[in-house]
């Protein structure tokens, strides 16, 4: 049984201060890294014989418009079936330079997950073989999951945020 502690120590030993912000929300090991190190970190977890985190569960994006310089976060969920161990890796990237290397070289499943993330947030995955929109029409000229596109019609006055949820 692999513990969060073991993996965290292994990662710290290998990557030093390139992995940081270790947390355990609801028992799931969560850490952050930089976009330069994300592929090496995933490769390390995948190929290390003690971890064997060979399954990429999910890739998605989050936007924090108020975090200057770290407006976007790409979240990777990975899973080791051998040890039944899950890990979440986050990479914060600035809006001004919205690039991150692709994980398609490691996992075939990353292809559509990254396309989806690009489609909704406009995050550019460098080296992706076919980075184009997947769920929305290709003519669309904005990225709909960004917070600057609110769900409600902004001209409506009868729905006040303070009264009706967010």
């Amino acid at each position: 049984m692999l513990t969060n502690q073991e993996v965290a120590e292994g990662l710290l030993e290998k990557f030093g201060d390139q992995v940081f912000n270790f947390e355990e929300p609801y028992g799931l090991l969560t850490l952050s890294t930089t976009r330069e190190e994300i592929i090496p970190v995933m490769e390390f977890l995948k190929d290390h014989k003690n971890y064997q985190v060979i399954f990429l569960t999910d890739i998605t994006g989050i936007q924090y418009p108020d975090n200057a310089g770290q407006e976007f976060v790409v979240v990777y969920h990975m899973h080791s079936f051998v040890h039944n161990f899950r890990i979440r890796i986050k990479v914060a990237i600035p809006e001004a330079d919205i690039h991150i290397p692709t994980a398609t070289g490691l996992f075939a499943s990353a292809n559509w997950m990254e396309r989806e993330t690009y489609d909704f947030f406009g995050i550019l995955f460098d080296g992706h073989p076919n980075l184009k929109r997947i769920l929305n029409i290709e003519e669309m000229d904005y990225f709909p999951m960004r917070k600057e596109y609110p769900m409600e019609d902004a001209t409506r006055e009868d729905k006040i945020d303070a009264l009706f949820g967010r």
Partner: protein
Amino acid sequence: MADIELLPHNVPSHNELPELVEELTTLNLGPTHPATHGIFQNILKMDGEKIVSGEQTIGYIHRAFEKIAERRPFYQITTLTDRMNYCSSPINNLGWHMTVEKLLGVEVPKRAQYIRVLMMELARITDHIICNSILGVDTGAFTGFLYVMQKREEVYEIYEEVCGARLTTNMGRLGGMERDLSSTAIRKIKEFIKSFPPVLRELEKLLNRNRIFMDRTINVGPISAERALSYGFTGPNLRAAGVDYDVRVMNPYSSYEDFDFEVPIGKSGDTYDRYMVRNEEMWQSLKIVEQAINNLPEGPYYADAPEYYLPPKDEVYRNMEALIYHFKIVMGEIDAPAGEVYHAVEGGNGELGFYLISDGGRAPYRLHFRRPSFIYYQAYPEMCKGSSLSDAILTMSSLNVIAGELDA
């Protein structure tokens, strides 16, 4: 008429014929084709009957659930989830409730957990009934489909007893179920446990060792375990390739650890193995349903969490606190704690994950659905490359791609 030339000089001799150009045919499979069982398109390049390459176009029924969810109170998101995999909506609904309960730290009583297991396993049966019998239809056996459809109808009647709806069930509540199992529901479930095995056996008799069916499905659309893992396969499709990953066993939720069942696995990951794995899973699900109904614990069917669980209606009329909570919950004025949670359940097609980020507001800050169909459907061109068109149809059918889940 003597000046007619009998031998035309302008026809080139055999050696001078222009070289035959091999052209590939482009075939649009979908978006509305009965064989795709849903709205998505495959643009296939065909060399005669052989598929050379394919590209999928999806998103035809994309409804922006993730965006809508950012403006909705937690309980209203349930109705979005049952429009994802509409063949087994209770699994989506209850999986979502469990995610929010994990975030809120609400402990659901045993009885509610057992009822949930019951409903989720019945939903798995309906899901697999559809997939397997449609596979029969695609190979030319329509009878089996109509025959087992009757049984799905019976399960839908059980849904009606439990939640009032049939297809888009919106089942359960945050903190438990909305009502206890009625005596009618229990009777219907017990009847189903008795009447389903003969029907399933009949379907097995029709297909399992049927020469035509076996010829049509064995070695059709195979995928190796490595490729399946790389492509993010989960659920029956991964198990058919020989990997015994099941969320119910690996990360038990809702008291799955109390139940005795087996995880069937296949070997070659072809259409026949996928069919057989689903077939066996129905038996296992039935076993779980039987255990759950026989060992149903006594006690409340909802958690003691008045802030989150909608109070009974008669309480609302008589009790001030209940009225306040009723109002607050219905108006979506319940603040959730800040946090991020990933919860996965074993859906009909595999690991259905909910990644929920709450910033302490009344709606999720971000909600992402890990939809198994979306992730494994990208392997489709690789799986049907080099096969004939009719085999490609079977491969798609056995993958059980549900358009609602694909597009979300």
